[in-house]
């Protein structure tokens, strides 16, 4: 396969599913500008290192991997700690259950490591098959399975509290 054709396949995939990749990036950084930066960096990396795409039919998982790695890298470089003062903590704590359910889950999700987050995001929000999740994260299937269960358990416990 010619390099120019590979380039075309990647371009096509990115153009078609750009919103999907943006959402994934956003879910890591929770901020529009950072998410756009990650998308930009991931696209540039993908196009200029097109040689690393060995099998064009795997373009989807290949690009997911680039986005996930770029996002995780970004988080590592900009390790942010969200500080919450007592007042807003109290405000959130006495909110009605129905409305703040999502926030609880979001918090719970944030308590996971970036790696565990990636598994949950890809499996449940992006609807990837476990095998695909494994290939995005460059791990074998059984590792991903056990990590997924561990992450779910952690989430569950966080919600119970």
């Amino acid at each position, binding site marked *: 396969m010619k390099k120019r054709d590979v380039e075309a396949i990647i371009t096509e995939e990115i153009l078609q599913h750009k919103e999907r990749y943006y959402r994934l990036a956003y879910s890591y950084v929770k901020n529009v500008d950072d998410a756009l930066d990650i998308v930009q960096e991931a696209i540039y990396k993908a196009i200029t290192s097109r040689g690393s795409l060995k099998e064009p039919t795997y373009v989807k998982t290949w690009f997911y991997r680039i986005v996930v790695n770029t996002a995780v890298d970004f988080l590592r470089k900009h390790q942010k700690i969200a500080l919450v003062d007592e007042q807003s903590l109290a405000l959130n704590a006495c909110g009605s259950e129905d409305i703040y359910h*999502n926030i609880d889950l979001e918090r719970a999700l944030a308590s996971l490591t970036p790696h565990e987050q990636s598994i949950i995001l890809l499996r449940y929000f992006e609807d990837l098959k476990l095998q695909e999740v494994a290939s995005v994260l460059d791990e074998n299937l059984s590792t991903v399975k056990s990590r997924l269960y561990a992450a779910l358990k952690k989430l569950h416990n966080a919600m119970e509290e």
Partner: protein
Amino acid sequence: MKNQLEQMREQYQNTQIPAELDHVVQKTLQAGVRKNRQRRSQWQWFSATAAIIVLLTIAVNTSPTIANALAEVPLLKNVVRVLTFRDFTVHEGTFNADIQVPQISGLENKELEEQLNSQYLEENRRLYEEFIEDMEKLKAAGGGHLGFNSGYVVKTDNEQILVIGRYYVNTVGSSSTTFKYDTIDKVNQVLITLPSLFKDDSYVERISTNIKEQMLQQVKEDSMKTYFLDYFTAITPDQNFYLNSDGKIVISFNKYEVAPGYMGVVEFVIQTELISDLLVSAEYVR
């Protein structure tokens, strides 16, 4: 739990897509593709050039007929003799260096060839390292502009004499240029130095006097020219020089050495009749 993940997923799917996304994606795709094209064309250029050089080298080394035929072509003659051995380049924003190292080939005196080539390489490597060091210092101090350019010209190339002039241009605001010449006798396979041409060191005074006269003459004829007439007293015994294609000695001064910067690198041709009685032989200087 299942239900909550479902809610979360919905929220995830509803992530607002910013209007800029389209533009960012398009722009980045284009930038990436452009970068690839650039890289590809550089590679193509490089491999084509490499192929030609390999072919030339093989042809010249295996067939005396081809070597002679190529030597008749003025441009190729130089290619056969002096090839750029390696390049050092730096392109980082306001920091630019482009260093070309010449390499001589085809001399039978391998010792001389090796000595010159390793000298060229060593010198350029040192300059490259100095450039990197200066660059890091400037960067640490908050940035700046720095340019360095080096390369070579073949000044003379006839049956007997090959002159390689290496130049170094340093740009920090204004620029300074340094030229260094090597004059090689291809027939006798030796490097010609200025003192080796003369019987004793009385040439220093003779040539210096002549240069002063030429400076005065030039200033008189052209009011745009200026030399540091009070400052310049004499050339050094191993003054930078070369033999031009007429077989005359040319004395070279670097920028700022004997004249203000705008004069650049200045050269003086020494008429042979002025020094003929001091020469060891009339072999080189005519």
